[in-house]
């Protein structure tokens, strides 16, 4: 029986790995068959990579910064309407990104939206729109991940620090944050990975403008939309490379288990 179970687990894992490798392999073979002539301009490739890196990093940092107090609040306190708050903040995780993008587009048509654009400059069809769209897509995930990281820390450490004279800010900055350090890094990387692959909300709010709001996923879409498969394959390969890089780094810092 034990042996059968072993075969089953190893078999399932091998099959799945084989399938993923085959997916990547078949794409590389397809890429090899394409003539190099049709590849996108290198300036376009570098632009898409740079924009994706910059926007995903900015969106993830802001998301993490906003999530820190929210996740701490949700992990440590109970209050009236907590379930409601929890549910509301989970919304971006389940909501389709295109719906989120459309909601943001509608929001910028309201007086408050106009006022925000007047104060901070335009978001709609601009790079700032990409960051905002990615932020809203990942912030729910970021809160969820940070909450788990905080919940893994024994509250006794905080109580002890309080009895030794730390105030709540000091406890948070000098006890909770350092203890959640690896969890924070892992959350950031996962959130960042999700942001860099974001397409639906980005394209709806920021539009698909080459060399302006052209992130890697937008570039893939634009290439596909003009039946330019070789360019799409080049961009897909880059996205796979970046994604595998993140996951590999996650393994290296050995924090996956904590989540």
């Amino acid at each position, binding site marked *: 029986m034990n042996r059968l179970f072993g075969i089953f687990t190893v078999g399932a894992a091998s099959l799945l790995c084989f399938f993923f490798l085959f997916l990547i392999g078949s794409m590389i073979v397809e890429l090899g068959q394409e*003539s190099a002539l*049709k590849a996108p301009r290198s300036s376009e490739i570098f632009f898409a990579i740079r924009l994706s890196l910059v926007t995903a990093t*900015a969106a993830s*940092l*802001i998301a993490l*910064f906003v999530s820190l107090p929210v996740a701490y609040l949700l992990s440590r306190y109970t209050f009236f309407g907590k379930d409601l708050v929890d549910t509301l903040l989970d919304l971006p995780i389940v909501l389709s990104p295109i719906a989120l993008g*459309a909601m943001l*587009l*509608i929001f*910028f*048509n309201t007086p408050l939206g106009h006022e925000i654009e007047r*104060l*901070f*400059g*335009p978001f*709609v*069809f601009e790079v*700032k729109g990409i960051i905002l769209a990615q932020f809203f897509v990942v912030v729910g995930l970021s809160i969820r991940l940070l909450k788990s990281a905080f919940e893994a820390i024994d509250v006794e450490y905080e109580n002890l620090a309080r009895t030794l004279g730390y105030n709540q800010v000091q406890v948070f*900055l000098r006890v909770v*944050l350092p203890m959640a350090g690896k969890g924070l890094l892992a959350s950031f990387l996962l959130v960042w990975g999700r942001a860099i692959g974001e397409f639906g909300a980005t*394209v*709806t709010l920021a*539009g*698909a*403008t*080459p060399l*302006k709001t052209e992130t890697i996923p937008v570039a893939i879409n*634009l290439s*596909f*939309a*003009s*039946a*330019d*498969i070789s360019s799409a394959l080049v961009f897909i390969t880059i996205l796979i490379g970046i994604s595998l890089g993140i996951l590999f780094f996650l393994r290296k810092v050995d924090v996956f288990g904590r989540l």
Partner: protein
Amino acid sequence: MRSRGVLVFLLIATVSFLTCQRNEKNMPESITIFCGSASKPPMEEIVAHFEREKKIKVNMIFGGSGTLLSQMELSKQGEIYLPGSPDYIIIGERKKLLIEKSDRIVAYLVPAIITPAGNPAGIHSLEDLTRPGVRVAIGNPETVCLGLYGIEILEKSGLLKGVMENVVTFGASCEETATLAALNKVDAILGWSVFHSWNPERLEFVPIAPERIPRISYVPISIPVFTKDSDLSQAFIDFVLSPLGREIYQKHGYLSSLEKAKEFAPQAQVGGEYTLPAEYFDLLR
């Protein structure tokens, strides 16, 4: 230490927001174009010329024609709308998003059979599409005008039933239908002759007998009601329709004059409406 890092980050974010705002204010005159993805290669070239000559910044937003119309409606922006086919102009005008009668014809689209490179199934005529085992794709006739034109050709040729039996999928847009052939997912699609020019290495073009084409379509250009400067919008349209603009479209495989389009379909009507026949819905069941 950490809080200081966060403060520095916030400071940088605020400064970048403020500088962005200042740049916006100093920006030269600019227009926003909502352009169907299929027209991306020629339009990018035309826009480069336009920007150089008129010293006006052009923002191009690409996407499916319907998606762009929704984006325009929600953002209340746009100086130019250039969808892939005239049916979106009708929708846009009905929704009062486009200035009525502001549309012009940029290029003509002639229906054709498109096959993957090498034409593996040996398709040479509409009749070949009825052969057992041939895998065919068409644009979704209820949402993509390409599909509607395809059904009309098949109905008028008496081949609707035979070909529909071989239709394995519907493309959700013109580009998606072309991609089905480019990725060798089907043996043939009913597309526009220009598809071949989009990807000549992967797609082959089989002309349909001229007398069998009842209607040709076109790429329209129109002015949204949200335009900040309708004169500038009109100036852009004039530039696209100028000999230079037409030459660029032609270079990318489009038929930029009616005479050229008529060579492929002498009796065809340009644009107009066609209603899906009851037979089509019967076949779907």
